[in-house]
């Protein structure tokens, strides 16, 4: 990052409980680093829950936009479309109902707008800059953030564009619900994701009623709350602020980095072309526990002194208490003496007569003094009482301090445990130290501050370990698998290996030198790894950045980059931030799990809601049917609010998070599944065919061995029959599913504007369709043939077996033979019974197969028309090129190329 005056105005907006909490965290980290908020930054939170907003103590009160629930009448007046059950919400805030959040936004829109607008204007006045960078953070499971995010983003983008004449750069950060959350937030997650994807898919301006419904986000980062079944809330809370602060997106002049690297412009350029896709972040850090060590040493040094002092204090307090006791006695004694003195003075004064003399002045003085002493004594008695309480308090305080000291001891032990046995995760690794190492490092405590991470590890003789935890994640490519969502980079593990073989045979995928699947279609856009540490912790030879880049760009991403960020402050830590731009969350093909695993549980929860309850999971376009209708082309009925609401709900229900063009890449996978299925059916048919080949001995040559062989043969045939019976059932079910997938695919290809497949892919697909159709025809014939003769074949086997059994001489019928005979007869009767069923089952396989054949023909037609379209497009391009050849200046270059 280059240093200089940064006039880009930055606004960070947290919407809803979790969004606000994260903004609060960012602010806390920023303040702890710099002690103040930079003048070009504003932090706002929008929440409907007063308690949750109040907990954000770092955010200025005037920057908290707390939306109170209006009464039901106002709610209904502002939202005629809102169903009565949702006029109020249970629990806090929006009660996790997105539909209610939408209604709340409509009621408070002007206020939200006013607050954000005034923050933007303040920034503009402060910095003079007219460029805005906005980060919006929210969770997708709640009611407030997920329902208001899109409207706020659109409104603020439009407002800033109109006011200041430049479009703001908006980044979104959305936190997906975990698999352990209840149905309501989990289904909300999918509702929000569908709406966000819809909006992101519209990159061009769509201005309806003065509102632009195009994608407001340049990048939208999806983050998951659990990874591989483990809760990662803590990591999220740490990673998001660190990502924004450490990488300098919210600089505040805090990042002391050298050299040019990833700044907002770079990032925008890298995101170009992937604005309609989601993005994610990854975070990994390896640290040497310097801070823990220093703290441990400080506590270790401090404790004996404190303990000694407490012993001294205890002795002193006890002596003071003794003194107070004796002084109390003294005071009582003096009280008696004062009384006596008073009496004496009184007697002295009272005696009168010729032979008596009293010194009035002296007695007056004595009386004054006595009075003073009496008063003093009274106050001292009070003082003694107070002092006794105070001494007791001090004693109690000492006991508390002792307990605190015990806490400190526990803290010391905890630190020791943390240093010697750190709890490391996938994204955080702390070097563990032995107690001996801790002792030895204490001697070079001062040097430790200046030495680099690598040098410290070298001093400990553990440099190999340093490279293993810092350089190897890049060198060995592990860091690619460390995003903060559950994302599958490759279909390899989720797909049956046979699919891969088939796809490979047809040239849809290739294999690299190590046998890894290389599939251009499923690569995401851009992978950036930013390594942040002090320069002397890098070893370029060990890093292998170039090899990593080529590995990532060959297998996972269309483009990859490894950026080294020299951060002097990070002398003892090595952080790797990863940005994954242009993710494809959808399933690589029908019947396969989605790449973004979160979609699995989001969809499961979403599908649990019936139509009426589905409304609570949606927000966008409720109450605004006109833009919905203009964008989707679905007609609406002006004024009929409920009907329009249901139209919107129906649309969202069937909306799929997938790119239209990507549907073509599903075709080879479905076809591969078909071909695989045909192979499976053929194997099954062979197994069925094999049943008739039971070895039946010659009836003339009876022996016990032959009888036993026949019984074994019949038993095996029975088992095979069972398997074939089960297989026919499964086969039929499989074909029905496959037929459904094929039909759905056809419907998608017909129903939406999926464009044309790439010409070379269309050719391969047609080849696959032809092969599949041919296989199918063969299969149908074989099924027809086998189903017709299967029963007869089995009948022949049964008859031959019966003949053999009938020829057993009567003198041979020992008890053993009778047992074998009974077994054989039971197997024969089972075979007779099952053969009918199996034949029927085989015949029934033909039904869906015939239907699939017609679907394949339809697919072929669509693919051919797509190919023609692609060819026409190609011809146009060629024509364009030909035209360009006519241009004199370019023709030279082309000729050179030809040469």
């Amino acid at each position, binding site marked *: 990052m280059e240093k200089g005056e940064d006039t880009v105005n930055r606004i960070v907006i947290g919407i809803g409980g979790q969004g606000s909490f994260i903004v609060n965290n960012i602010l806390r980290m920023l303040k702890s680093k710099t002690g103040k908020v930079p003048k070009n930054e504003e932090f706002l939170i929008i929440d409907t829950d007063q308690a949750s907003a109040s907990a954000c103590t770092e955010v200025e009160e005037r920057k908290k936009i707390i939306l109170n629930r209006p009464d039901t009448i106002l709610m209904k007046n502002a939202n005629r479309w809102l169903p009565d059950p949702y006029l109020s919400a249970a629990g806090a805030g929006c009660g996790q109902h997105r539909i209610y959040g939408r209604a709340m936004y409509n009621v408070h829109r002007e206020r939200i707008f006013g607050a954000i607008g005034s923050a933007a204007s303040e920034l503009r006045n402060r910095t003079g800059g007219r460029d805005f960078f906005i980060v919006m953070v929210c969770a997708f499971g709640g009611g407030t953030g997920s329902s208001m995010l899109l409207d706020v983003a659109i409104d603020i983008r439009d407002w800033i564009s109109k006011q200041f004449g430049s479009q703001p750069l908006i980044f979104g950060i959305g936190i997906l619900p975990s698999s352990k959350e209840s149905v309501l937030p989990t289904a909300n997650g999918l509702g929000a994701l569908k709406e966000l994807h819809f909006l992101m898919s519209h990159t061009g301006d769509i201005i309806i009623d003065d509102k632009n419904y195009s994608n407001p986000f340049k990048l939208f980062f999806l983050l998951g709350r659990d990874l591989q079944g483990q809760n990662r809330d803590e990591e999220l809370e740490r990673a998001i602020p660190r990502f924004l602060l450490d990488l300098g997106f919210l600089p505040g002049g805090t990042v002391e980095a050298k050299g040019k690297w990833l700044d907002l412009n770079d990032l925008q350029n890298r995101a170009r072309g992937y604005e309609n896709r989601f993005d994610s972040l990854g975070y990994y850090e390896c640290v040497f526990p310097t801070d823990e060590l220093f703290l441990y040493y400080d506590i270790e040094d401090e404790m004996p002194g404190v303990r000694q002092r407490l012993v001294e204090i205890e002795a002193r307090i006890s002596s*003071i208490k003794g003194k107070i006791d004796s002084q109390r006695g003294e005071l009582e004694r003096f009280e008696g003496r004062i009384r006596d003195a008073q009496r004496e003075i009184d007697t002295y004064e009272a005696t009168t007569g010729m*032979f008596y003399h*009293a*010194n009035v002045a002296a007695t007056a003085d004595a009386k004054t003094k006595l009075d003073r002493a009496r008063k003093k004594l009274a106050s001292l008695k009070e003082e003694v009482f107070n002092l006794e309480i105070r*001494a007791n308090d001090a004693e109690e305080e000492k006991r508390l301090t002792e307990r605190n000291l015990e806490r400190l001891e526990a803290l010391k032990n905890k630190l020791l445990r943390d240093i010697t046995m750190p709890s490391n995760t996938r994204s955080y690794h702390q070097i563990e130290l032995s107690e001996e190492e801790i002792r030895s490092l204490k001697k070079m405590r001062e040097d430790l501050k200046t030495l680099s991470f690598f040098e410290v590890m070298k001093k400990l003789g553990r440099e190999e370990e340093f490279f293993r935890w810092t350089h190897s994640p890049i060198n060995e490519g592990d860091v690619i698998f460390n995003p903060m969502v559950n994302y599958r980079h490759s279909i390899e593990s989720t797909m049956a290996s046979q699919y891969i073989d088939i796809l490979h045979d047809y040239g849809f995928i290739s294999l690299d030198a190590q046998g890894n699947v290389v599939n251009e279609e499923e690569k995401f856009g851009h992978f950036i790894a930013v390594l942040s540490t002090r320069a002397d912790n890098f070893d370029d030879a060990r890093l292998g950045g170039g090899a990593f880049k080529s590995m990532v760009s060959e297998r996972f991403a269309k483009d990859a980059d490894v950026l080294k960020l020299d951060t002097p402050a990070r002398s003892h830590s090595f952080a790797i931030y990863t940005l994954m731009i242009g993710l494809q969350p959808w399933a690589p093909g029908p019947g396969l799990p989605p790449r973004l695993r979160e979609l699995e549980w989001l969809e499961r929860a979403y599908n649990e809601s019936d139509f009426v309850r589905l409304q609570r999971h949606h927000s966008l376009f409720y109450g605004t049917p006109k833009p919905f209708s203009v964008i989707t082309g679905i007609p609406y009925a002006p004024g009929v609010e409920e009907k329009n609401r249901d139209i919107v709900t129906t649309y969202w229900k069937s909306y799929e998070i997938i790119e239209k063009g990507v549907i073509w890449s599903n075709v080879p996978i479905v076809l591969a599944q078909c071909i695989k299925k045909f192979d499976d059916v053929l194997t099954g048919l062979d197994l069925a065919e094999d049943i008739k080949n039971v070895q039946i001995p010659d009836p003339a040559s009876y022996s016990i061995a032959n009888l036993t062989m026949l019984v074994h043969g019949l038993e095996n045939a029975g088992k095979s029959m069972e398997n074939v019976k089960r297989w026919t059932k499964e086969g039929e079910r499989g074909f029905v599913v496959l037929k459904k997938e094929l039909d759905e695919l056809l419907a998608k290809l017909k129903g939406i504007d999926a464009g044309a497949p790439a010409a070379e892919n269309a050719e391969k697909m047609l080849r696959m369709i032809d092969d599949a159709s041919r296989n199918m025809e063969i299969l149908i014939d074989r099924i027809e043939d086998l189903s017709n003769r299967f029963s007869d074949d089995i009948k022949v086997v049964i008859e031959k077996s019966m003949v053999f059994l009938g020829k057993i001489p009567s003198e041979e019928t020992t008890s053993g033979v009778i047992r074998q005979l009974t077994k054989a007869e039971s197997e024969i009767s089972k075979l007779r019974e099952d053969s009918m069923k199996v034949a029927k089952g085989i015949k029934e396989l033909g039904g869906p197969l015939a239907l699939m054949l017609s679907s394949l023909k339809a697919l072929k037609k669509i693919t051919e028309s797509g190919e023609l379209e692609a060819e026409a497009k190609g011809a146009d391009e060629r024509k364009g090129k030909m035209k360009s050849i006519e241009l004199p200046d370019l023709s030279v270059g082309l000729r050179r190329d030809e040469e």
Partner: protein
Amino acid sequence: MDIEPLSIGILIVALVLILEIVVMLVKFKVDKMLLLLPVIGLIFVVISLVLNVYREAVRASVAGAAAPYIVYLILAAGVILGFVCFLVWFKGEKEARKLASTVKSIDSAVTGIESDLRGSRMELEHFEEEMSAIKTKIQDYETKEKGV
């Protein structure tokens, strides 16, 4: 006229008594009842002076040898009364001094206790501050631990 030495002595005694009265009245501000003693004593001295001056006349009325004794007796009574007055004053003053010293000792002892208590209080305050500092330090360590 020649003044007899005895008369001069009596006059001196009278003057002493007058001085005593004046001093006691003005300086010591004694009770008026007590002044009755030197006043009566002075009257006796004056009577003895008069009797001494007019001893011839007195001799005529009393037995010749008793007359000087009468003078001496009256003079002695005057002197005794003056002396008694002094003794009474002295005794009263002594008692007053005793009382004052008792009160003073009480006062200073109480003051001593007060300063002792102040010392203890300050010491306790210091301990409290010290322990509070320890507590803060421990809290700091805990905060730091959370931060690392």
